[in-house]
């Protein structure tokens, strides 16, 4: 069944708009979204009336409107017949593209436009307070004074306990992420120099076991990324279509304490726990749909706001066995020099995290078409992108390929 969807649609155009805190003109999330969308439509060589489906990630936190999807389509003067926001936290970003694949294959529409946009780094100064409000249950968690790092730290605490991972193993991910960020023109930490495992361990404790350098840096600006998707028969009319080889998504809970109320589900197992995530299900579906396996993947981006999450995702994406993410990275398998190209923008830890990031997918497509100036990975033809949000609540996985199978 899923085999029919593999390679059935392609990304035929991308539009991007980036603003940095230091720029003369700081753009809002809506400006970023409108400009990136317009660029994507122009790059595709299609007319705005050909956009049949329009999917956006959740409303930007920095630009609240009741119906943000309509706010943006109103700017673009498009009239889609199928439009909605996809709100599975950060996983909803790739979720827009998954929905687009289904929409264009239905035959109801020819072209789908998918957009994410956020500029919270510019507009919301107190990210720690604001994030804690958004990521903890207002009744049962927030009155205890949690921060986002401390909520993820619950999972880290269990992961270290159950699998024997160490702070050094977590730190190794931050070190390798930083190497890549030094090569990316838009990375938040581009000019901050390389770091060592000792630097991470000596950085101040935020929420045990997470040190400052185990945590994502909030992107100092704003980013919008827009994609045009169409089905195979139409994709052949466009130059350099990027094939969507496979995808998957799973959501298991809302708040972290609620996660421990989830049980008897295939992905979790019989007993509640914090360390089996929906990423494994999403990855399995993506691999099945594409007919590919982890060995076939040339480049990987993971959506991981804390270092230990990368270790867990490497396992759940099938690059190593469950519990062996730590030894895997310590053995050099994600090394900037010679390892699996992993978070080639620098990841959330050093590129910076901008909510609802489709920029990871953009980076992957740049790499597989040889357009990643200054950081180009040789011979990367197949890429895997992971998206996630909530406290490991929602996960998406997408595999894209330069060649059609």
């Amino acid at each position, binding site marked *: 069944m899923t085999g029919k969807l593999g390679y059935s649609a392609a990304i035929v155009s991308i539009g991007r708009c980036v603003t940095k805190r230091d720029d003369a003109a700081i753009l809002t999330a809506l400006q970023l979204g409108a400009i990136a969308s317009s660029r994507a439509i122009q790059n595709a060589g299609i007319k705005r009336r050909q956009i049949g489906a329009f999917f956006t990630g959740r409303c930007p936190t920095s630009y609240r409107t009741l119906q943000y999807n309509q706010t943006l389509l109103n700017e673009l003067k498009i009239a889609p017949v199928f439009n909605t926001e996809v709100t599975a936290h950060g996983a909803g970003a790739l979720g827009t593209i998954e929905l687009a694949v289904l929409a264009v294959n239905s035959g109801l529409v020819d072209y789908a436009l998918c957009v994410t946009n956020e500029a919270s780094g510019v507009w919301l100064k107190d990210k720690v307070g604001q994030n804690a409000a958004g990521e903890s249950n207002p009744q049962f968690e927030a009155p205890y004074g949690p921060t986002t790092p401390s909520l993820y730290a619950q999972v880290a605490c269990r992961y270290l306990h159950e699998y024997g991972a160490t702070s050094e193993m977590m730190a190794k991910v931050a070190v390798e992420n930083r190497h890549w960020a030094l090569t990316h023109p838009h990375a938040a930490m581009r000019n901050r120099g390389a770091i060592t495992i000792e630097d991470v361990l000596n950085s101040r404790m*935020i929420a045990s076991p997470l040190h400052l350098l185990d945590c994502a840096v909030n992107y100092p600006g704003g980013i919008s990324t827009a994609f045009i998707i169409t089905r195979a028969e139409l994709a052949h009319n466009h130059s350099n279509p990027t094939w969507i080889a496979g995808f998957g998504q799973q959501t298991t809970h809302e708040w972290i304490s609620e996660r421990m109320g989830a049980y008897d589900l295939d992905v979790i197992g019989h007993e509640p726990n914090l360390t089996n995530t929906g990423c494994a299900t999403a990855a399995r579906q993506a691999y099945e749909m594409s007919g590919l396996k982890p060995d076939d993947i040339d480049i990987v981006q993971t959506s991981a706001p804390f270092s230990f999450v990368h270790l867990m995702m490497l396992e759940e994406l099938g690059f190593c066995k469950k519990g062996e993410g730590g030894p895997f990275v310590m053995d050099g398998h994600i090394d900037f020099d010679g390892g699996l190209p992993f978070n080639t923008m620098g990841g959330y830890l050093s590129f910076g995290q901008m909510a609802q990031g489709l920029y990871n997918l953009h980076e992957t497509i740049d790499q597989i078409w040889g357009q990643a100036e200054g950081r180009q990975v040789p011979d990367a033809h197949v890429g895997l992108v992971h998206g996630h949000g909530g406290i490991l609540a929602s996960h998406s996985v997408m595999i894209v390929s330069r060649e059609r199978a």
Partner: protein
Amino acid sequence: MTEPSIKLEDWAQGISMRAGPVSLGLYQPSPETMEYWHGIERRELMLRQCPACQRCFHPKRIVCSDCGSSELTWVRASGRGSVYSFSEIHRPPSATFATGVPYINGLVRLEEGVHLFTRFIPEPGPVRINAPARLDFRVLESHWLLPVFLVG
């Protein structure tokens, strides 16, 4: 701010919390959880329970995920449990909580099989996974009277 006394007719107004200039939103005891908050005022920790299968649930549950019953009742927790996970917070979410750092938040596993987010107090300590935890009630930095767990 004072310790809130929860009334059903007040619930939709919520209680505003701020972190500097940023609103943390409204903490809103709501009709389906009111008995939990009334229990706290009596120094009792209340959980949900399915009368058909006896399984206990988080106080927020509305239906039984085993049999589908929507007739869940309230049951008083024994107050005995153990530490499932924890984190010592050094960077607080707001000035409100800065007075308490470092403090330890985590998930407690109650002997009824329910997990709750809570504050662990190392009395006598230390806080570590599987350490026994027993219920107490404290007014925390949020000025709310809340269930907490003493560990060690």
